[in-house]
């Protein structure tokens, strides 16, 4: 390790200045000559058919170039498989402008292209559609009986169906000393990152396109565009260096990409399509989910039986599934389990992953259930968790690669002051506020994806790392630069990390909290190979002081290779490149998960959240006054960017528990609060003290970097901790999220 090793240090974002000065360019900000602007037209009915389209008034407007709809769309391969992106759930992928069928309200049904955005938006209001409406169903609550098993497909790899039942749930539940049954309902949530979805397509001619897109996966979208439009892969380049938040919304190519590329190819022009805020409510969302839990314990609080049923909403054309019911048995041992997951297809767009999909839904229910049991058992809620603590994964019997959840519980409880809690609901007060303490557990996957790294030492002796990965605001650019710098013993300024470009070597999309582990491990592997190559070349230099050196004899420091024993014996990277006829020294390596070795283990991150709420005695207004989260996620590469992932997730937890919901009018079959004035997310006044603790969790098994990822785990425990704190304050259980304060009246 060099003196200036930077992994583990709170390095500020390297691109921070560009972002706060507005110099960072996002997909909708790239200029191209004679750019045309497309505006998406959305269906105003929920289900049925378009019977006619009248574009005459729109095309009469000066500056309107074209209106694309199913009537005049270009001939394209209409095979479903051609549209299946890497994250497509089983079913029939949605193909924009395919035919006259309306499958959901807000469905994109036309693209109007004009010389400027304002004209496009205005003229789009003049296109007249006639519809034949059909009966629709959009309300999950009314359609629970339609729940059926989810279809299987590629996506099932990351989101396996529930495991088979164990033991005999009904009998064990019946015979247990303590049991509880409860239902939980979650509202729809929509993705509302600050940056709106946008694509700028530069038509390069000769079937070549350069696409600036808002996405979590440059290569995913490159493949999608090439397949859907019959272009060769190498002719489609997708670029996304800056992405203004995505949280899952950019895992799949969104319809503005398809429509923008279609228009560019048809018109042979540069085209930009930007969605407006209202249109952010016309695609994927976190699904409404109904859950019913029945848990029982013996008189000592050891869980005897667990039944977790979840019914989620999906569209009529794709089976979007989440891992909802798989978590309880990964956390708590029980001899009798019955885990059931169903989907109810409704006339809505396909749901889409949103930060900790399934996990935060499930853990709300599971951890509120644990709280209920703790009261029935007259046992401290933390004590109940510890009573059921498992060092191995009870659902498989496998060991964890590492699990420092106990450390999370104890450190967070200590920092929070949990011991001061009087368990009696409503017993703690502050003026005319009831004070509640609640806690909950979090668990999330620790994935690793394959990733390919190109590593280059330039003639200046500097390091370049190339990879197609995006940085969706998580700090990937900064953290990967740190990892690369340390791996080669270089200062940060001597490392350039090029990313966000499908022309760079392969990366999966940035999702599932997997990228830190995937890219960092691949960089470490690539650096190892590069070091080998550099040493070999250094030894080959005539009169090389390293002639006899083996790998173990040398260290890499500040752009040089030195003998450990005799640091004056030095060869610099510059000399090596010079001896290489001035050609940069380059390696390309694939980082793969150690699938075989890891077969024997379960990989997971864990967390514990402790929350204090104040509830007004008469008016019942709720405030989350402070929260402590402790997170066990392997090695923390950069405590500053990691902390901001966790605090951001904790705010999301407040949002999920108290604010965020898209309201569906079931009679109209559409969402009605589709703007940021009425779609509530927390503002500063809703966020108070947030404290983050990272547990020490060395993990030599999981991957080269010892990293698990922190993008989602911070959210998982928060909603239940808040709901439990509200119960502690008021004695009322509100199992529907978000909690409206008036339900406490």
């Amino acid at each position, binding site marked *: 390790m060099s003196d200036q090793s930077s992994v583990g240090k709170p390095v500020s974002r390297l691109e921070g200045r560009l972002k706060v000065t507005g110099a960072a360019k996002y997909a909708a900000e790239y200029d191209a000559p004679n750019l045309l602007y497309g505006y998406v037209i959305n269906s*105003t009915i929920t289900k049925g058919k378009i019977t006619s389209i009248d574009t005459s008034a729109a095309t009469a407007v000066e500056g309107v170039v074209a209106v694309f709809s199913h009537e005049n769309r270009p001939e394209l391969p209409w095979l479903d498989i051609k549209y299946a992106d890497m994250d497509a759930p089983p079913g029939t992928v949605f193909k924009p402008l395919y035919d006259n069928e309306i499958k959901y309200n807000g469905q994109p049904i036309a693209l109007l292209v004009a010389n400027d955005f*304002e004209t496009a*938006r*205005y003229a789009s*209001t003049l296109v007249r559609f006639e519809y034949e409406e059909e009966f629709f169903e959009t309300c999950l609550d009314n359609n629970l009986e339609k729940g059926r098993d989810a279809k299987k497909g590629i996506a099932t790899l990351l989101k396996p169906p529930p495991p088979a039942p164990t033991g005999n749930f009904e009998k064990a539940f019946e015979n247990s000393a303590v049991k509880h049954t409860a239902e939980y309902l979650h509202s729809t949530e929509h993705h509302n990152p600050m940056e709106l979805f946008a694509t700028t397509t530069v038509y390069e001619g000769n079937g070549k396109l350069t696409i600036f897109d808002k996405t979590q996966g440059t290569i995913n979208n490159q493949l999608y565009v090439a397949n859907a439009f019959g272009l060769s892969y190498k002719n489609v380049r997708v670029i996304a260096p800056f992405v203004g938040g995505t949280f899952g919304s950019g895992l799949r190519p969104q319809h503005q990409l398809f429509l923008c590329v279609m228009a560019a190819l048809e018109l042979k022009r540069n085209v930009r399509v930007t969605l407006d805020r209202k249109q952010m409510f016309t695609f994927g969302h976190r699904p409404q989910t109904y859950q019913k839990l029945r848990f029982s314990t013996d008189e000592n609080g050891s869980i005897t039986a667990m039944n977790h049923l979840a019914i989620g909403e999906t569209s009529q054309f794709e089976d979007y599934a989440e891992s909802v019911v798989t978590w309880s048995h990964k956390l708590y041992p029980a001899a009798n389990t019955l885990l059931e997951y169903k989907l109810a297809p409704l006339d809505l767009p396909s749901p889409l992953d949103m930060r900790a999909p399934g996990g935060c839904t499930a853990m709300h229910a599971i951890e509120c259930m644990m709280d209920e049991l703790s009261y029935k058992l007259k046992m401290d809620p933390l004590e109940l968790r510890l009573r059921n603590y498992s060092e191995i994964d009870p659902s498989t019997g496998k060991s964890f690669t590492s699990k420092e959840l106990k450390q999370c519980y104890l450190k967070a409880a200590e920092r929070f002051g949990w011991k001061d809690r009087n368990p009696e609901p409503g017993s703690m007060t502050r*003026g*005319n506020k009831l004070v509640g303490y609640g806690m909950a557990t979090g668990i999330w996957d620790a994935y690793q994806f394959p990733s390919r790294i190109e590593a280059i030492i330039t003639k200046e002796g500097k390091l370049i790392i190339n990879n197609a990965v995006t940085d969706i605001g998580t700090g990937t650019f900064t953290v990967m630069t740190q990892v690369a710098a340390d791996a080669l013993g270089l200062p940060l300024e001597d490392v350039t990390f090029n990313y966000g470009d499908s022309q760079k070597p392969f990366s999966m999309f940035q999702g599932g909290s997997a990228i830190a582990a995937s890219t960092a491990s691949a960089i470490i592997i690539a650096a190892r190979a590069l070091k080998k190559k550099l040493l070999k070349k250094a030894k080959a230099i005539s009169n090389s002081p390293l002639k006899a050196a083996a790998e173990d004899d040398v260290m890499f420091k500040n752009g040089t290779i030195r003998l450990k024993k005799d640091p004056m014996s030095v060869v610099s990277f510059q000399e090596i490149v010079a001896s290489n006829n001035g050609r940069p020294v380059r390696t390309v390596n694939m980082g793969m998960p150690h699938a075989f070795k890891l077969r024997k283990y379960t990989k997971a991150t864990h967390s514990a959240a402790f929350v204090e709420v104040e509830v*007004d005695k*008469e*008016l019942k*207004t709720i*405030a989350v006054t402070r929260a402590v989260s402790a997170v066990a996620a392997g090695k923390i590469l950069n405590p500053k960017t990691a902390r901001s992932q966790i605090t951001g997730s904790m705010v999301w937890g407040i949002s999920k528990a*108290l*604010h965020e919901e898209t*309201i569906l*009018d079931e*009679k*109209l079959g*559409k969402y*009605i*609060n589709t*703007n940021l*004035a*009425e779609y*509530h997310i*927390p*503002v*500063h*006044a*809703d966020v108070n003290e947030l404290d983050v603790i990272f547990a020490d969790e060395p993990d030599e098994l999981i991957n080269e970097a010892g990293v698990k990822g922190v993008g989602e785990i911070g959210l998982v425990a928060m909603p239940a901790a808040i709901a439990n704190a509200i119960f502690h304050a008021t004695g009322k259980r509100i199992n529907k999220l978000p909690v*409206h*304060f*008036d*339900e406490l*009246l």
Partner: protein
Amino acid sequence: MNNFDYQQAASIADGIQLVSTNNKAAFVAGGTNLIDLWKYRLMEPELLVDLNQVKEHHSIEEKEDGSVRLGAFVSNADTAYHPIIEKRYPLLSKAILAGASAQIRNMASNGGNLLQRTRCYYFYDPNVPCNKRTPGSGCSAIDGYNRIHAILGASDNCIAVFPSDMCVALAALDAVVNTSGTDGERSIPFSEFHRLPGDMPEQDNNLRHGEIITSIDLPEKGFSGNYSYLKLRDRHSYAFALVSVATGLELSGDIITDARIALGGLAHKPWRINEAELFLKGKQANAESFAGAAEILLQGAKGFKYNSFKIELAKRAIIRNGLMALHPEQQLPGARPSA
């Protein structure tokens, strides 16, 4: 957004002339509501007449009779932080600061605040029935999601609420709205400015097309000794009121000698009932008295599927805000409930 012409009114008379003769013309002041309505296609003016360049009505002045005149073109922020308002009408200041965001308050004008339109979800969606937007088309809210809707003074045609915070305080303070139009100048008592929906929900207030709000007069009595504004909503800032209460008290010892209570978030206009205030006169300033007033204020309240909670919540809010008015120095930012 349609193409449109833009003109700056050189004077009030010029503005009246430009708009009253063109029914596709609209005034703009801060634009914070108008631009949204336009983008949602609820209005598509062909001529926009900017009032900001009119020389007069940009100041706040004390008049000889002790009243204070708020220029219509003064921003909500400048009004809230004006020394005269902070000193003599802190209730108004608190109510303004409980609304919107700092950025919006910087742009929003006093005249425009009175004319902001309802936040009913369905009103903003041109593709669904709404009597206020498209008279005769029906009301989607009555049998729809009506959590934010009215429990007082609603009609079968419309159950929307008027969303302003500032106006709740203005109603409590007995403000007078001064206007200028083709028929000359009018001074409209605040209680007569906004309308109940009745069978004409499309009409929010009694201002005529082409008529300009020039100023708002605040009578001398400002209840600066004992006042409180309480706003209850789904987040602690930057959300419209589910229930809000403006209370001003005059006390002699602990006996109420004069009282004003206006409610927001409950009706198509700020809600005031004189009997409730008369009831309080001569009573002790305590929870029991405020509870009595609350009963009177909420008489005839009718809840719908999702908003019945407002009846009980409003009663509790009236009581709490009465008590909060006894300790105005404890007011929290955002008009949150204080001790």
